[in-house]
């Protein structure tokens, strides 16, 4: 034991989040009491955040393979082929706990982390999205959390120069004490120029590049692996602080280093910082690493080995260069004003070895000691593949179906007023206040901007020795946590279906998914049952729609300890979906376009269930009712029809009916197209809350120009997709025969006012 270090005891291990069994396992494997830095390393590497110890057994059931998949889960991000030698690289990741404690920095560094995950693979980020969950709009903390998170995402993404093109936000009381901030990023690169997080080549130098190390974020990974106690704000020192300018320099420097072709591997320092990045790189390559902490660039004085190993300072990269090419890396870093230093080497020992001189501080100006003592010596396998893995008990919540029995007949129902109320609801209406704070057009690629279509559409410039070409991709993120709460398996399947349906609505075929699985405490069997079922639901939908999951992230312990007991968030398996266009003319907007176009609703007529709908939640104040079900085979037919119809130019517009149901979907198509419509619902649509405002999935409002009606009808018949004629586009009002009429102005104003109650005008 060295000076200033506490003695490692079972109590200290417990304080580090290790259970007694886990500590015993560590003692047995090492054959001695770990040093203090070793205990720190074990605690972060075995944390839920890094080890996925509760989720791994379930994640194996996700379909991850497909003809386009170049790299699936396990790398820093998923990689999918988009043809002509080019690929997209994407992933979604949570930054929930930090964002609740310090919204601006928490959300900003969430963006920074996911951007690094993408560019560490050699890809330039070209689009970002985010999926946010906040508590009730009336909760006293909601306005400041919303403001802080949005400003944090904007502050980072805008300065970095990635367009934030889409996303979603929902409000529900279940998130009052635990908001969700899920950040998505997508980059592009040549598929033969990918870089992996591997410490390959024994003897190769390990380089540290980027921001200097400070004390920020120490134990962030451990914090993300425990539920919140009251007074969580005291955790603020564990929140990292972001510097998007540094990240921008790091991006440009990395891209230039990649082009120089001198690297064997690279990984960003994310959760659990230097420790996790180097250990994972060693593990993937089947090698060991030795680190020399005395040489590490730092910004704080007197950092201990423990602090350096656990720091989560942002904007840092670890690179393994080919021996002899170090100087090339250092020169490029100098060009971009980046700190860089050789801090270790790849070994063949299979061990994670760290050397540091106690009491030495390079900031003192003293030269490095020639030889420094070993402070950590652990097998890489113990920290990765042999980390504890749990098959935790799952017990279905026996009270869940009690919540299905809700009688909606006595609830007040006024179609005209209810539509305006729903359009103005924070869960339904315009998100302009949010996306206007994001630079969503930088890089000249944004073809469908946020709010303008069911999915964002981005142009990708592919420039190589064969010339310059343009490709077009779509992306969307979705999850309705209320459906997942009421029926986790169906709800998760519906999240996948909706995300892919949003792609299909703009005319793109899905090529891959990323998921961000936000749940409560996995040590509670009913939470674990939700998780298990959600995985199965995602897998069901992936198989039906023939789309793989290529990357993802699990965030557990999203719950708060309240006086009445633990309160978990709604199970929220957020899905980010990416689709590819054959040609730019396939892109379809969501708004009605031309007077006289015919309006149809495509998809099976549902069962008008109100469970989990915005309407019922507003009327009852709780998430209840029997939720909708989904016919995945019908969904697949619908989506392939939409993509085919878009390619044939048959659709003037297409818009998915989601929160708020059919009537809201129709009104949104009017608002977006700045055009009215004269419609009549056929007899099978009951004039009930369920018929008008129920949120059955698999329904899409389309408009069709009269002169292609014949071909449209033929294609509908061939595909076997249910199709119901509703009326025609035109006028300055939405008129629903025998129900009500709304002027375009009142629809627009209601929709535009959705967030006013939270953030003001």
């Amino acid at each position, binding site marked *: 034991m060295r000076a200033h270090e506490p003695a490692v005891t079972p109590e200290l291990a417990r304080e580090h989040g290790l259970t007694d069994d886990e500590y015993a396992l560590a003692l047995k494997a090492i054959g001695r009491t770990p040093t203090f830095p070793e205990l720190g390393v074990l605690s972060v590497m075995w944390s839920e955040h890094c080890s996925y110890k509760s989720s791994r057994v379930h994640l194996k059931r996700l379909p991850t393979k497909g003809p386009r998949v170049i790299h699936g889960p396990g790398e820093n991000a998923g990689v999918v082929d988009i043809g002509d030698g080019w690929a997209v690289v994407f992933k979604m990741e949570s930054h929930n706990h930090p964002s609740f404690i310090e919204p601006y920095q928490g959300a900003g560094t969430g963006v920074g982390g996911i951007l690094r995950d993408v560019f560490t693979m050699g890809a330039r980020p070209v689009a970002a999205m985010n999926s946010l969950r906040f508590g009730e709009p009336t909760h006293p903390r909601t306005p400041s959390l919303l403001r802080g998170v949005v400003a944090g995402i904007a502050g980072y993404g805008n*300065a970095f120069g990635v367009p934030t093109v889409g996303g979603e936000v929902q409000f529900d009381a279940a998130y009052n004490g635990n908001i969700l901030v899920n950040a998505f990023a997508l980059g592009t690169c040549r598929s033969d120029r990918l870089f992996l997080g591997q410490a390959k080549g024994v003897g190769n130098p390990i380089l540290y590049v980027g921001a200097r190390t400070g004390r920020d974020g120490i134990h962030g990974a451990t914090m993300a692996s425990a539920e919140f106690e009251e007074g969580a704000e005291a955790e603020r020192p564990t929140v990292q602080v972001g510097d998007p*300018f540094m990240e*921008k320099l790091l991006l440009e420097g990395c891209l230039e280093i990649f082009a120089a072709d001198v690297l064997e591997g690279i990984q960003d320092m994310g959760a659990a910082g230097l420790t996790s990045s180097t250990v994972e790189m060693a593990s993937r390559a089947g090698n060991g690493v030795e680190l020399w902490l005395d040489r590490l660039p730092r910004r704080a004085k007197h950092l201990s080995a423990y602090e350096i190993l656990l720091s989560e300072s942002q904007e840092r990269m670890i690179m393994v260069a080919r021996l002899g090419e170090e100087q090339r890396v250092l020169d490029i870093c100098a060009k971009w004003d980046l700190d860089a230093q050789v801090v270790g080497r790849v070994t063949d020992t299979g061990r994670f070895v760290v050397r540091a001189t106690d009491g030495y501080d390079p900031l003192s100006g003293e030269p490095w000691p020639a030889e420094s003592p070993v402070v950590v010596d652990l097998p890489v396998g113990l920290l990765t593949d042999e980390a504890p893995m749990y098959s935790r008990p799952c017990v279905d919540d026996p009270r869940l179906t009690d919540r299905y029995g809700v009688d909606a007949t006595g609830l007040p129902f006024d179609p005209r007023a209810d539509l305006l109320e729903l359009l103005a609801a924070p869960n339904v209406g315009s998100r*302009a206040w949010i996306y206007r*704070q994001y630079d969503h057009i*930088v890089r*000249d690629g944004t073809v469908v*901007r946020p709010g303008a279509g069911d999915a964002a559409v981005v142009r990708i410039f592919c420039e190589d020795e064969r010339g310059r070409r343009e490709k077009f991709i779509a992306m969307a993120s979705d999850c309705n946590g209320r459906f997942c709460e009421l029926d986790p398996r169906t709800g998760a399947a519906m999240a996948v279906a909706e995300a892919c349906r949003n792609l299909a609505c703009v005319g793109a075929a899905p090529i891959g998914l990323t998921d961000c699985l936000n749940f409560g405490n996995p040590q509670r069997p009913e939470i674990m049952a939700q998780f298990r079922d959600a995985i199965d639901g995602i897998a069901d939908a992936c198989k039906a729609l023939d789309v793989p999951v290529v990357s993802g992230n699990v965030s557990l312990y999203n719950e708060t300890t309240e006086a009445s007991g633990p309160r978990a968030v709604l199970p929220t398996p957020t899905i980010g979906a990416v689709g590819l266009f054959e040609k730019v003319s396939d892109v379809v907007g969501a708004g009605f376009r031309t007077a006289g176009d015919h309006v149809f609703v495509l998809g099976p007529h549902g069962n008008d269930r109100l469970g989990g709908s915005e309407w019922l939640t507003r009327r009852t104040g709780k998430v209840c009712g029997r939720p909708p079900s989904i016919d995945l085979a019908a969904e697949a037919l619908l989506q392939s029809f939409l993509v085919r119809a878009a390619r044939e130019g048959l659709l003037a517009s297409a818009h998915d009916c989601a929160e708020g149901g059919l009537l809201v979907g129709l009104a949104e198509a009017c608002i977006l197209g700045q055009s009215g419509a004269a419609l009549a619902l056929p007899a099978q649509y009951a004039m009930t809350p369920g018929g008008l405002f129920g949120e059955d999935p698999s329904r899409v409002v389309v408009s069709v120009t009269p002169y292609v009606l014949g071909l449209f009808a033929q294609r509908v018949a061939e595909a076997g997709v249910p199709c119901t004629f509703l009326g025609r586009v035109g006028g300055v009002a939405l008129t629903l025969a025998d129900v009500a009429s709304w002027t375009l102005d009142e629809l627009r104003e209601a929709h*535009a006012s959705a967030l006013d109650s939270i953030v003001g005008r």
Partner: protein
Amino acid sequence: MRAVVIQFPGSNADFDALHTLRDVVGVQTSYVFHKTPTLPAGTDLVVLPGGFSYGDYLRCGAIARFAPVMADVRRHVERGGLLLGICNGFQILTEAGLLPGALSRNAHLRFECRDVFVRVDADGPFTQELRGRVLRLPIAHAEGRYQADEATLQSLEAKSLVAFRYVPATTPDPRAPANPNGSLHDIAGLYGGPRRNVLGLMPHPERMAEPLLGGTDGRLLFHSAVRAALAR
């Protein structure tokens, strides 16, 4: 005709400018790194692009004016060469003293990205035959509120140097006022330099130059600049 786009550390709309000039307008265009002491021979147009040069730490654009390349940019202006500062580029121009006044934090204190309408209010190399036209261009900034003392404003107006002014849309949106940032005199862009050869503006013409991106109004400025450069 030859154009260059200066890359400061933190520039991020450098690609937007390069793409529009090179691929859309068809001008020979290249990047010039901020540490380069001299512009390429025969440079007609220099673009200071949007972004967050030097992180916009201290003040937006405050550090970029000290970049090694800026001395030659000044000489380029003195020779009558065209200089266009877009967004952060406009901020750099005011910090460098190449245009008067300052761009401060938006009145509502938020970053704002959306389309705005601006009227061309002055003649010059970037706006030939465009005076009086209303253009739809996107903005994306947090510090675009033009401020100057009264004497400066009077002088700008008297010399007709206000190139662009925010004007209302045909269908006003109460949540998106015509003047998006509280700029004095609704100023969105200014001419300066010995021959009106310097233009700074907050909106991004290089992001509205293709039908695919929602409009082509921005292209008009570049076409005008090409004509001006060829006429020299």
